[in-house]
């Protein structure tokens, strides 16, 4: 396989939008496989909480914009690679119906020096929150409700500029 093709494949494998659950252990094993250069691995996992803005939540439906989701995540990952010296990256975001406690999102990053993996991971999450076209609809005790965006999320993303 040509170098270019391999690089393309690696890029494609960095992002996964999926209905199915994922295994943290498997994802980290893939990030570490044949990777003896990077001593640091930082992961973020987000799960469905049982409460939001004081209301009990029983389930969540995640809608997304296929195509734009992938390209926006790719741009965020590329920006992170420009800013920090990181090795491998994996971003998983689930869509469809999710129950309380289920995993929604995963970001895993390897690096030689831990600082890069920490910063790049938080950067990717901050921009995913405000740029990637996902929308949550919560099933609460008061019925179905689209989640409203939080100003605090925009503030976090702006802190990186």
């Amino acid at each position, binding site marked *: 396989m040509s170098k270019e093709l391999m690089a393309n494949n690696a890029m494609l494998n960095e992002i996964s939008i999926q209905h199915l659950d994922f295994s943290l252990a498997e994802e980290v094993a893939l990030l570490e496989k044949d990777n003896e250069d990077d001593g640091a691995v930082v992961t973020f996992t*987000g799960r469905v909480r049982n409460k939001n803005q004081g209301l009990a939540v029983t389930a969540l439906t*995640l*809608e*997304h*914009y296929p*195509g*734009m989701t992938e*390209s*926006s995540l790719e741009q965020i990952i590329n920006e992170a690679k420009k800013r920090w010296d990181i090795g491998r990256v994996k971003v998983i*975001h689930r869509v469809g119906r999710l129950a309380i406690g289920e995993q*929604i*999102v995963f970001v895993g990053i390897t690096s030689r020096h831990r600082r890069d993996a920490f910063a790049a991971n938080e950067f990717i*999450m901050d921009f*995913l*929150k*405000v*740029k*990637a*076209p*996902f*929308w*949550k*609809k919560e099933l609460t005790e008061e019925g179905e409700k*689209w*989640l*409203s*965006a939080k100003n605090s999320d925009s503030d976090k993303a702006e802190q990186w500029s």
Partner: protein
Amino acid sequence: MIKIVFFAALREQLNCSQLSLPANGITTVNQLKSALIEHQAIWQPYIENQSLLSAVNHQMVNGEHMIKAGDEVAFFPPVTGG
């Protein structure tokens, strides 16, 4: 033609996920918004919602962004993933 897609709360408010309009005379996102309101007058409050976001060919853009026939234009509320 211009392909237009709507997502999330907006899709439900308009009760429409996708439509096409002729590109004639539409050169910006803001002009497309006006054309949508002409197309369906009851859409006006939702299309004019200040917090609405727009994307052209999968890139977020503002109202002055230029569009042309064949483009895919999306309108949606602020995103809430992660």
